[in-house]
């Protein structure tokens, strides 16, 4: 089943074209990474999916419905969860904001809402912090709380905008491990700059820079693991591979071998290999000697 279907979508702020003719399909339990340069339209694309911005050209279907009508199915973790840290609010209260309008008591929160919020905190491993003031948490912990808030409404899709931009390396790994767990039953869409980390967890990647190029990378994950440098790629290299149609000067660094336990069809060899075919043409990119 397709949880998200975008067809020929274009969007402009006033006269400046931000997104042009975007087509993208996300299936159930996909882990999609949206990458691309700043100002390339990643956040705008998210806002369109969430119905915050209204599009004029093309179509977006979330679970078969218009974005506005399927908000309850989407869990959203916004960028910059470090703002407003002085705000006097407890972790549990933040999480309960994730509840959708509906039956609720005259005053305060219902028992089922508290239980549901505690469950969500449990899922992200933050249940012990329920009564803590949000400002006293670390960046990574706060991000977990925001994920719990998104999970509170039992969404089918979880969308995160730069979830690890202000977290240290260990914290980032933990967040992605958590997302991987959640991905066993929820579709996950992540916008990130963290290309190397994200590609390790994602099974699909979309590069957005006004246009969108899409890649199925599910069978590439083993390759990333075997790369040196703790799985870190040269970002420019990756961006070129994923982004440009006429990429033929990409080089991969570090030694990599084929992982036989995976059904990988890629052939990655030692350094100075280059891509001879355009990534676009094959609908999946290939590294060739």
């Amino acid at each position, binding site marked *: 089943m397709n949880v998200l279907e975008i067809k020929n979508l274009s969007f402009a702020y006033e006269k400046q074209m931000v997104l042009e003719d975007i087509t993208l399909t996300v299936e159930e339990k996909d882990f999609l990474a949206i990458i691309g340069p700043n100002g390339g339209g990643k956040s705008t694309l998210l806002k369109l999916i*969430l*119905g*915050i911005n209204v599009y004029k050209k093309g179509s977006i279907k979330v679970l078969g419905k218009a974005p506005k009508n399927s*908000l309850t199915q989407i869990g*959203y973790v*916004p960028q910059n969860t470090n703002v*407003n840290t*002085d*705000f*006097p*609010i*407890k972790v549990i*209260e*933040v999480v*309960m*904001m*994730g*509840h*959708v*309008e509906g039956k*609720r008591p*005259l*005053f*305060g*929160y219902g028992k089922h809402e508290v239980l549901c919020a505690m469950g969500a905190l449990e899922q992200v491993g933050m249940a012990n912090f329920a*009564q*803590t*003031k949000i400002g006293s948490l670390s960046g990574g912990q706060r991000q977990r709380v925001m994920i719990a*808030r998104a999970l509170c*409404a039992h969404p089918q899709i979880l969308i995160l905008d730069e979830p690890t931009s202000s977290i240290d390396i260990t914290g980032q790994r933990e967040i992605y491990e958590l997302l991987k767990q959640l991905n066993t039953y929820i579709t996950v869409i992540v916008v990130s700059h963290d290309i190397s980390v994200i590609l390790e967890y994602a099974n699909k990647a979309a590069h957005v820079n006004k246009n969108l190029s899409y890649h199925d990378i599910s069978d590439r994950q083993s390759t990333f693991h075997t790369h040196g440098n703790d799985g870190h790629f040269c970002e420019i290299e990756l961006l070129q591979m994923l982004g440009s149609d006429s990429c033929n000067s990409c080089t991969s660094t570090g030694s990599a071998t084929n992982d036989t336990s995976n059904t990988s069809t890629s052939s990655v060899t030692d350094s100075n290999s280059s891509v001879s075919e355009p990534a676009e043409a094959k609908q999946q990119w290939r590294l060739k000697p």
Partner: protein
Amino acid sequence: MIEALQFEFMQHALLAGLLVSFAAGIIGSLIVVNRMVFLAGGIAHTSYGGIGLAVYFGLPIFLGASLFAVGAALLIAALTLKKRHRMDTFIGLIWAVGMAIGVIFVDLTPGYNVDLMSYLFGSILAVSTEDLYFMAALLALILVVVTLRYRDILAVSYDSEYAGLRGVNVRFFYTLILILSALTVVIAIKVVGLILVIAMLTIPVYIAEKLSNSLFSMMFLSGAVATLFTLVGLWMSYTYDLTSGASIIIVSALSLGLFLLLNKKVSS
């Protein structure tokens, strides 16, 4: 001070001080967490336009000031929801134009001119019974709104974009907070005056913010702190024959200094 309480004006002053302080504590909390302090200052000064118009047309001062302040709040809400990045310019504009309108209408009023100073710096000793009703009604309204709609107000204040995604009517609650602020500013004019009101809306809140871990406790704690400051300020004003509004603010400011010093000592 006790013997002074046999005078009706003193009883009124005390009651007005209590009602206004509590309202200011609650609404001040919302103003501070929503980063609307400058905005509230703008509404406070603009309401002088309403006072001028009321004097000119012979309307009750409270009514004129309330209508004008609410009008300004609606205008600011509409402008800031649309063009958030130019907000400070608009507020500065409304701030000055409102005052100018007030001054001109007071000039145009023939005969006896009202005492400008009493509106700028408060005249708590001249609170009438009707004023008290108005203050009590507003406090009741504020209490009803913040208790029944607490979660919506909390959601909009903490993260308005997310609240919108979860089906909360952000525009409505943002405007509602501004209207309640405007009305609170108007009743506070009687007690501390429109220039000093901003201190009353922020100093108790600042102290309460450090001591609370939820918006709800912050609102009621700052209400209590504001009430305490008002009582001490009134006592000081009576004992040393000083302007009441200014006394309340000085007491608040000194207490804040003391609080910060103690806070630093405790945490270090």
